[in-house]
């Protein structure tokens, strides 16, 4: 597609359940980012992929959060044993990496997760 696609756009789940959020980046973009945006806050970095590997996962809040990008394109953010505090909009962005690191991020519309 033309832009970054995220599914589902909305997800309501119960505390303790497992959730997967999907991101389909712009074709050819090797860099992929996950951010979390809570109400009234700026996007908070979670994890960054360069190709298939997680180059930086320092933003993942705890071991309930995990993300994969097995073929260097689509990425899935996985949240185990969800808690009410996980409720947020999860944003995915992709970027065409340049050697100077000046790539513009292209964002998807986000996946809004509500944990009841």
């Amino acid at each position, binding site marked *: 597609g033309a832009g970054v696609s995220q599914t589902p756009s909305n997800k309501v789940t119960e505390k303790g359940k497992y959730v997967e959020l999907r991101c389909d980046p712009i074709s050819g973009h090797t*860099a992929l*980012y996950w*951010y979390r945006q809570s109400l009234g*806050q*700026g*996007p*908070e*970095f979670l994890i*960054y992929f360069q190709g298939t590997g997680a*180059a*930086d996962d320092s933003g993942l809040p705890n071991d309930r959060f995990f993300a994969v990008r097995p073929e260097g394109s689509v990425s899935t953010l996985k949240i185990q044993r969800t808690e009410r505090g996980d409720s947020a909009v999860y*944003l995915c*962005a992709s*970027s065409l*990496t340049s*050697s*100077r*690191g*000046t*790539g*513009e*991020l*292209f*964002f*998807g*519309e*986000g996946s809004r997760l509500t944990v009841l």
Partner: protein
Amino acid sequence: AQSVTQLDSHVSVSEGTPVLLRCNYSSSYSPSLFWYVQHPNKGLQLLLKYTSAATLVKGINGFEAEFKKSETSFHLTKPSAHMSDAAEYFCVVSEGGYQKVTFGTGTKLQVIP
């Protein structure tokens, strides 16, 4: 380590008056700097970016920003606010070949008719 500070969480201006949204950054390397806008219930959209070319950068919708290394600032301005400019604005810093990207906490712009 890199960081970005947006000095105002809320800014309110009258339609037709100038807009100033302030941003200061900290970076160990020569940074790239961006401003993104987020309208309610919409995705983030790039307004403009600085990547060490001209220090005065022009973006979409009449916005511009000036990179001032001596002040470590990258303030966003617009000569005349429109109602459609009401949104949240994020200053973003990116550094190095690693491309770690850090967002500021955002500034909500209110435009009063």
